[in-house]
């Protein structure tokens, strides 16, 4: 049983979950997709990615889906679990509502400059 599907996840973990939302992917593919998805802001090393995937696996949010060898290099594939999909959706919804609240505050401040 996964610990908690709405557990707060780190930014790196969130990007990893989002990267797997389209389907199964190997570690290197995840790292490249995360870099692209974050506009180059999140660049994962093998050590960071491995740790994050292990933690997400322990939480039941992702699971390994097999291994293949490509040009002599071993690649392990991962996929999102149902709780992983739910956690991603919940996290994105939370970000969306936070962005809406903050955006509203910024817009109000622009309309009334100088008011405390």
């Amino acid at each position, binding site marked *: 049983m996964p610990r908690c599907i709405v557990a707060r996840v780190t930014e790196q973990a969130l990007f990893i979950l989002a990267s797997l939302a389209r389907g199964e992917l190997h570690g*290197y593919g995840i790292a490249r997709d995360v870099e692209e998805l974050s506009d180059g802001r999140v660049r994962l090393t093998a050590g960071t990615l491995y740790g994050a995937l292990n933690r997400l696996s322990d939480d039941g949010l992702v699971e390994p889906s097999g291994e293949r060898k490509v040009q002599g290099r071993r*690649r392990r594939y991962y996929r999102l679990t149902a709780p992983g999909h739910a956690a991603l959706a919940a996290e994105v919804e939370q970000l969306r509502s936070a962005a809406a609240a903050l955006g509203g505050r910024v817009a109000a401040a622009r309309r009334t400059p100088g008011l405390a």
Partner: protein
Amino acid sequence: MRRRLLDLCLLAYPREVRARDREHLRDLAMDLADDHGTVREALGLLRGGLTERRRRGRTRRAVIAVAAGTALALGGLTWTATAQGGRVEEDLFSCAGPCADTEAEVASRVRDGWTCTERRDPDAVSWRCTRD
């Protein structure tokens, strides 16, 4: 040399992790090192290994001992690499459109023990082949 450096950094991970995932981790680090450089990946493995040890409840003393040992070995290896500078061979290939000849060349490199990483862009394919 690069493989040896990454193997050395993998010593930062607990023995049971190395027994299970050593090759997988090293191959992933080699893939990413092709894009972002070996030093970054080496440091990432060190940090990841020490974090993994802490996560598994290793004592602070054991973590410090492993960190110090690995850093010493890493220093030695870096010094050796610098002294032997230029021993790594690297060839770049790219093509757009029919790529049969280039793919055959890359395949022959792989057979000869080179490590080749493929990158597919919308209008071209490129390979970076290296050999220690």
